[in-house]
């Protein structure tokens, strides 16, 4: 293992985060606070409790997931796409490092950043609503696994993308709708039966449901399915990355 290389990539990426503090950390926190004000305080006050939980608190896990999924994906995709775009990737390709070390560096940094933002949002939520977390360990496990899995997805997107438009495509057109339709702001039991079934094909449902279970002990799907979903998703990402590196797809000609 070339630990120095992993540390170099990780440090370089984290330095970028802190250099662009406003854009990296302040802006997701601000937009989440706006969600709280609009959905939690303004609209939420007119909505009944959802399965015994106040609406303001109910949306906290979904809001955290919304930001964490987007952040881990965009951070990792940008992290690996940028060296490709400006040409410094030659250095990664000619250095004595394996592809897995490159992944650990970029995905590790992107996941760390998303995790930090997730925790900051959780802290911010305490200012708006009363929150008690029923299963804090499970909450942490879900959060970390989600950060890592979606950073892996982001890394794949960054390798695949050949321009900035493609880089934005998946987060904007796939991830955001899936998260909004995945029960961030509602329980899927509120949907008509047909849509409940359709929703089950949305993988994000399982993540949000599991994450919400860790907070409040209630879930749209059983916790076992949630764990299985995230493990399978991570497995698929890892297999894809393995294939990319084996074939040199869009990296080595």
């Amino acid at each position, binding site marked *: 293992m070339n630990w120095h290389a992993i540390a170099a990539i990780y*440090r370089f990426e984290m330095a970028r985060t802190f250099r662009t503090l406003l854009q990296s950390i302040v802006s997701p926190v601000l937009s989440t606070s706006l969600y709280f004000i609009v959905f939690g305080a303004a609209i939420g006050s007119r909505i009944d409790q959802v399965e015994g939980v106040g609406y303001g608190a109910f949306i906290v896990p979904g809001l955290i997931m919304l930001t964490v999924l987007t952040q881990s994906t965009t951070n990792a995709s940008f992290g690996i796409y940028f060296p490709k775009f400006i040409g*410094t990737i030659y250095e990664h390709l000619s250095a004595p490092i394996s592809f897995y070390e490159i992944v650990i560096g970029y995905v590790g940094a992107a996941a760390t950043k998303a995790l930090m933002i997730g925790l900051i949002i959780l802290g911010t939520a305490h200012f708006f609503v009363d929150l008690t977390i029923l299963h804090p360990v499970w909450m942490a496990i879900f959060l970390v696994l989600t950060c890592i899995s979606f950073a892996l997805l982001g890394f794949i997107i960054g390798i695949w993308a050949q321009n900035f438009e493609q880089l934005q495509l998946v987060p904007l057109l796939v991830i955001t709708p899936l998260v909004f339709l995945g029960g961030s702001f509602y329980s899927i039991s509120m949907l008509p039966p047909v849509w409940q079934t359709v929703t089950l094909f949305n993988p994000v449902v399982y993540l949000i449901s599991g994450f919400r279970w860790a907070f409040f002990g209630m879930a749209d799907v059983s916790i076992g399915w949630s764990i299985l979903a995230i493990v399978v998703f991570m497995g698929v990402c890892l297999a894809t990355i393995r294939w990319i590196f084996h074939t040199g797809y869009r990296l080595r000609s």
Partner: protein
Amino acid sequence: MATILNVSGVTKTYEGGHKALKDVDLQIETGEILALLGPNGAGKTTLISVICGITTISDGTITVGGHDHAKDYRAARELIGLVPQEINLEPFETVMDTVRFSRGLFGRPRNDALIEDILKTLSLHDKKDSRIRTLSGGMKRRVLIAKALCHEPRILFLDEPTAGVDVELRKDMWDIVARLKDTGVTIILTTHYIEEAEAMADRIGVISKGEILLVEEKDALIKRLGRKELIIECDPPVDTIPDALSDYPLTLSPDGGLIYSYDTHAGSTGITALLADLRKAGLHMVDLSTRQSSLEDIFVDLVKEDAA
């Protein structure tokens, strides 16, 4: 001297069938400077890219310091530093941070004292905390060299180090290369400036259309292939070559003199006979001078031959 880099039978065929390298063999000795000359698109950058691991090879083997560059890529790549042709740098980083990153990437523990020494050698030390985007083009090129040197490589590749660089910086670059050679680093540079190869290299390789046409000691190459010319100034000037001299390979010079080209290694140069015959033909010589053909002439001849 020991061979530090061995390229054997290397072929590179790109998707779509373009053969960028055809069965290339190249041995580099420790501590030498080899200049790879070739026209644009000859395969110079591809050759460097396959050795450095940026591009895969279709066939053949490459060993660096005895390590196979594919099977034992870590040991092989640790020995190599690469200065690419394009100025590829993160614009928002500082010089120090970007060089530190490179050292880490090559698996070396942090050593700021060493990096500062390298920056001093490259006259970059006062810019160490400057952001890359604020540097001039020449400075950026030096940063690329610092990045390539910071993990203490034994072989340094310079891909067109002076392309688009002004005369002063080019001379600086030559000085830097000479100093690096003194520290025992083996240097392989590509260029299409003949004068650069002539000024710096110990050996010269000529590559064209993906094939190495020759690799030879610079001096020997100039000697072996070098033709010499005897320039004869006449008074009054001549406008045709006299019939009596038609057996000699003479050409007219623009100012009414004659140019005799000969091979310095031939048993007889024919100069004595020519001078005698010139007198017999009634020509009055006012001056004689000789000119050795440059590497450029040799190179143009070689590439032309290859194209034929």
